[in-house]
């Protein structure tokens, strides 16, 4: 059962969150926090491991921007060995879901982690966010107000526009912004005994869920509707080999999408390996045989392979598209295929640690339509 408490908002929403996070450190409920901090210039936010409470005053987990999926960073920290001290990690839904997938893949450990999720209204591209910061001193608050009014925000990344998981799943604590009168306070949701313990230790005032559930459902439904609309369009755009090739035409094989992907976890990409280094005669031989060889070659194979490896676990954060220098809509393809494939296995990446990876399970009566 979830339990709720109120974070007082005398110093504004951001102020309340900062105060809460600082409190965690001060009360030694965590020894460090991984949280997005505003750059001193204010232009952007970057995930930072903070150990001193005063540093938290620059924390801004609400800034509508996602320069990196922090699941990747949690993996970086806990891959070799799990965290020796209590580490609070502040994550958006897509980050938390990616983290759960990485834990299943033994690429991260949740030991001693306090998972703090945040209701997410979506994010801008890094450039759009920078612009918004320049335009307004209170860009984060402005964004929050616009989003809570339910206005369509054309600057939202496509991934966020069609994300049907605005609320983190499986967090110890969630900073609840949906269905809450932010003038009166933020709703802190404890989803686990760990989270409840924090509420008790911090001496926070217990609260009721109020209008949260209907608000979540409404937003989820809107996003799902939008998803149907967008995916239908994407399907048209990439249908068939020709359209797919056209979609990938400007790929330069830089593999940035692979680097941005929170789940692409190989040490060395197969496509960066010597297996893909060929003698000149091979290239000319292929060209001879087929009449023409598009260069750089292997772009289609690269994306298909990555699709094959990652699509069941794809959380749809969309950072692949953000990372592409040539605006290849990598996310569109992954989201479309991911949606269909995940449906087949009734698998929602990041939903639960107890759900086994489809690749590692075998059911005799699975996929009866495939094969004989």
């Amino acid at each position: 059962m979830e339990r709720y408490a109120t974070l007082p908002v005398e110093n504004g929403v951001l102020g309340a969150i900062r105060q809460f996070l600082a409190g965690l450190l001060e009360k030694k409920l965590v020894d460090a926090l991984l949280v997005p901090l505003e750059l001193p210039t204010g232009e952007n936010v970057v995930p930072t491991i903070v150990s001193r409470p005063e540093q938290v005053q620059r924390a801004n987990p609400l800034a509508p921007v996602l320069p990196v999926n922090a699941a990747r960073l949690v993996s970086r920290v806990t891959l070799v060995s799990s965290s020796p001290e209590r580490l609070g990690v502040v994550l958006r839904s897509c980050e938390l879901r990616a983290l759960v997938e990485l834990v299943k893949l033994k690429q991260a450990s949740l030991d001693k982690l306090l998972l703090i999720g945040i209701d997410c209204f979506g994010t801008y591209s890094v450039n759009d966010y920078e612009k918004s910061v320049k335009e307004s001193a209170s860009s984060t608050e402005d964004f929050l107000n616009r989003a809570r009014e339910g206005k369509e925000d054309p600057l939202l990344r496509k991934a966020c526009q069609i994300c049907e998981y605005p609320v983190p799943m499986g967090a110890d604590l969630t900073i609840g912004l949906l269905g809450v009168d932010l003038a009166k306070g933020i709703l802190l949701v404890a989803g686990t005994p760990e989270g409840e313990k924090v509420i008790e230790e911090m001496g926070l005032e217990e609260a009721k869920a109020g209008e949260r559930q209907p608000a979540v459902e409404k937003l989820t439904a809107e996003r799902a509707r939008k998803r149907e609309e967008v995916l239908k369009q994407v399907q048209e755009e990439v249908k068939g080999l020709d359209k797919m090739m056209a979609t990938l035409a400007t790929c330069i094989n830089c593999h940035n999408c692979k680097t941005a992907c929170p789940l692409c976890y190989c040490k060395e990409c197969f496509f960066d390996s010597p297996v893909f280094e060929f003698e000149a005669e091979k290239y000319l031989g292929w060209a001879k045989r087929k009449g023409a060889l598009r260069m750089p070659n292997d772009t289609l194979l690269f994306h298909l392979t990555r699709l094959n490896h990652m699509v069941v676990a794809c959380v749809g954060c969309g950072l692949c598209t953000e990372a592409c220098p040539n605006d290849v809509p990598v996310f569109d393809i992954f989201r479309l295929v991911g949606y269909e494939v995940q449906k087949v296995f009734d698998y929602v990446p990041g939903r639960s640690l107890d759900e086994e990876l489809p690749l590692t399970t075998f059911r005799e009566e699975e996929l009866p339509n495939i094969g004989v």
Partner: protein
Amino acid sequence: MAKSEAVLVIGAGVAGIKASLDLAEAGYTVYLCERKPSIGGAVVQMDRWFPDNHCSLCQMLPTLNRDLSSQFCLRRGLVHPGVELLFNTEVTGLQGEAGDFRAELSTRSTGVDASLCIGCGLCTEACPVEVESQFDEGLGRKKAIDVPNPYASPRRYAIDWEKCTRCGECVGKCPTQAIQLEPKESTMQLQVGAIILSTGFEEFDPRMATQYGYRRYPNVITSIELERILSPGGPSGGELVRSSDGKTPASIAFLQCIGSRDRGRDYCSSACCMFAVKEAALIRKTWPDTDVHIFFMDLRTFGKGYYRYYEHARDELGVHFTRCRVPVVKEDPQTHNIMLTVAADGGLPVRRQFEMAVLSVGQTPAPEFGELCQVLGVETNRWGFCQTRPFSLTETSQDGIYVCGSAAGPKDITDTVVEAGAAAGEATRWLSSPPARPAAEKPAETPSEEEAPQVVVFLCGCGDEIASALDLESVAGYIGQLPGMVHVEQVPYLCSDEALEAVAKGAKEHKGNRLVLGGCGLCVNKYINDKFATEAGLMPEKIRVVNLREDVVWVHRDQPDAALAKTRSLLNMAIEDARQQDYPPVSLTAVTPGALVIGGGIAGMTAALSIARHDIEVHLVEKSPELGGNLKDLYSTLESGDTRPLLKDTLEQVSSNSNIHLHLESEVVATSGYAGDFRVSIKKKDDTTDVLEVGAVIVATGGDEYRPEEYLYGQSQKVLTQRELEKRLASGEIDPSGLSSVVMIQCVGSREKDRPYCSRVCCSEAIKNALKLKEVNPGIEVAVLHRDVMSYGFKEQYYTLAREKGVQFIRYGLDSKPEVKEEGERLITELIEPVLGGKLVLEPDLVVLSTGIIPNDNPALAGILEVETDEDGFFREAEEKFRSTDFLREGIYVCGLAQSPRGIEETIAQAQAAAGRAVSLLTSKHLKAGRMVSEVVQRLCRKCEMCITVCPYDARARDEETNEIVVREALCQGCGACVVACPSGAAKMRGFRDKQVFSLIDAVFQ
């Protein structure tokens, strides 16, 4: 005592193959003799088996030291250095005694010299004599000289001596003079320590029961004929058609119990019900427009998973089941449709029309079987099957001679395979210890990594067969200039002995370290299996065979350009493939001798004794304070009689055996390690823990009796279970002479929604106790309320006997269960009588509930052992039919009620089989890895452990010290699941590394 380490196995059907392989794996020398010219018996005529509707014959192939054995389909053949196959051979005499038999064998030539035959088939083409194909059950045609088993490889031609007219047409056509028109007999003598009789059954010939119209009505066929019809390799290419007009029948009727359960054969053939259900299910899946009806008396779905499969066929696939006596069969002469007169329960006989009828024919002993038994001096029973001793399914009346499978009575594949394992295990009593294993050492490994590949190619002309259709000169010229080539040579017949020598010589002369052969299907056997590799100093993996005859010439006989292009492509690929092959020396894994047996019931004790006999230390762990398990509460069985001496003997043997260490009131709490090297933690009574190091583990934890809540059990003193009745009869607490009426209710807690399985033993128990009541008090009224009487096999005779003695068997349905009420002192049982449909009220003195068998808390132990349990909570074996005593996790075996409900005799057999498997592992000093195993590229490995999760064989693990993922090569079966799962390309398969595969693909398209 034992003077020989050799065994003679008679009959190379599934039982003979299994027994031979088990013994050969354990290092013994096996002579496997077979009357026919190829192996497989009845199973090779079948394509698919329930419950998964696939073929899984290959599951019998060895999984340890696996490169010693052939690893291809057993229908094609079996190659193992420990098994000598003697085809067309029969046993004609036997002297000596157990441990030192001298067997006389006689071999009749097939007319085709196998060492000369090139398998070209010209003889068959020339032969003018058409005969019915026995393999296709007479449905297809073949010639008097032909391949008796079309799957066998090499294709073994043989003359049908009875049908051959000696016209000699074939002799002239044979390019290698391999044919001799008169049969020749040759004899030999073998010295063996033990003999296993696995001659199988003969299907009942329905011509002997003329009422079914078999062979008079074209659309009446047998179930085995149907099996051939459904086979893609069968007479109609897998199309379901009927004989009269070649059309797909819109309706099919299966008639059960043809040649079983009748006056002449008062036994149940055990396998036919499920055989029919399987065929019906397959038909409904593939031809959903065909209506399928099964007409049966009792549906005997007593084995593991059978009832579930039957329910699936009935409810999901829409197979219709009608309970009735065997219908009367007539034919409509116009349409050739079959008219059945069916007298189902509670109704008048009804005439129904079907487009095809299938007779589910039973099993009978082969006509020659009696003679063989006489030669061997073993007793047969009243139906001519081999007689076994009490409590044993495999011991014949002669010491040292064992029987398994249908030779000892009709049975299905699963039980046959278990018995074969038991017979193999028991036969070792009389054998001297085999030489150390692994026996056949491969040639010294050449340090190939440093050595540049040098390819030698030999091209076979196959007389004129290949040479006339393919420009071999041009082929030789083309491949001669490919990279790595050192020599190309053409020979007339690659399969001739001269060529064999020439190839070995040529390879040595030109310092070839890779060999590519352009020949035919025979080359694979000759050059890879016939130890040629050893002679030429090449490992089989470095030899590649391109089948120029079947794949090129026979396909493109009139297209020389296409033939040439394809030849180039195939050879190019084979040469590149051979060039890329490099293998490190195979690894050996040490085996810790010593076994752990979990569970001290009859299964565990039997297994412990079987293992201890091989001078292996056995730890027998039992959680209760005493041994004996369920057997303590049983007093007799239908077929073997009093169980008390069995329990007493076994307990004495266990306690006096110095190799057996008892751990009472102890439980297994943790395991680590792998096959050959387990560490098992045992928690003792005093809560201290012992760690045992063993090479193998046997799970024999038994099962429990279902404790009923229904039928007033626990409320009325007059309602008890069969076990309680048995106990009170034995103790005299209940005196039948004081009773006038007893009602027994079957399937209490079995074959229901929560437990959709048959408990297998309860019908026998009921019959046994009913007979006992009748024996003491013939006037007692006994009514057995049942759903199907599962008196399979020879248990049927007791069912008959019980009815003769006046025991009433009254059927009830799942939806109309009997009711038991207490009215004052009176106990009232009511049910709907199915034949008349009226309510039947009985007022018995006792109601006896036949409660089923339920699993123990197996999932908990399964978790500790890292093995699986099934839907019903019993342990899940590696494979239902062919590996029912193994787990997929190597080195752990299962037997008895832990695996599924079964009787005492069957439990003992399964325990012996499981022990045999364990002994085979434990007596090998080392396990030799296969050459084609997976490997880890540590540089790329992210340790996500997906490979460990997906590996079915426990062959991958994280090394505790280095923290790296490692491959336990001896356990790896080379299936490649890890390679598929690993996204990082860190899991590789030897022989199939990326570069190897890519260069192959490039080569074929060059």
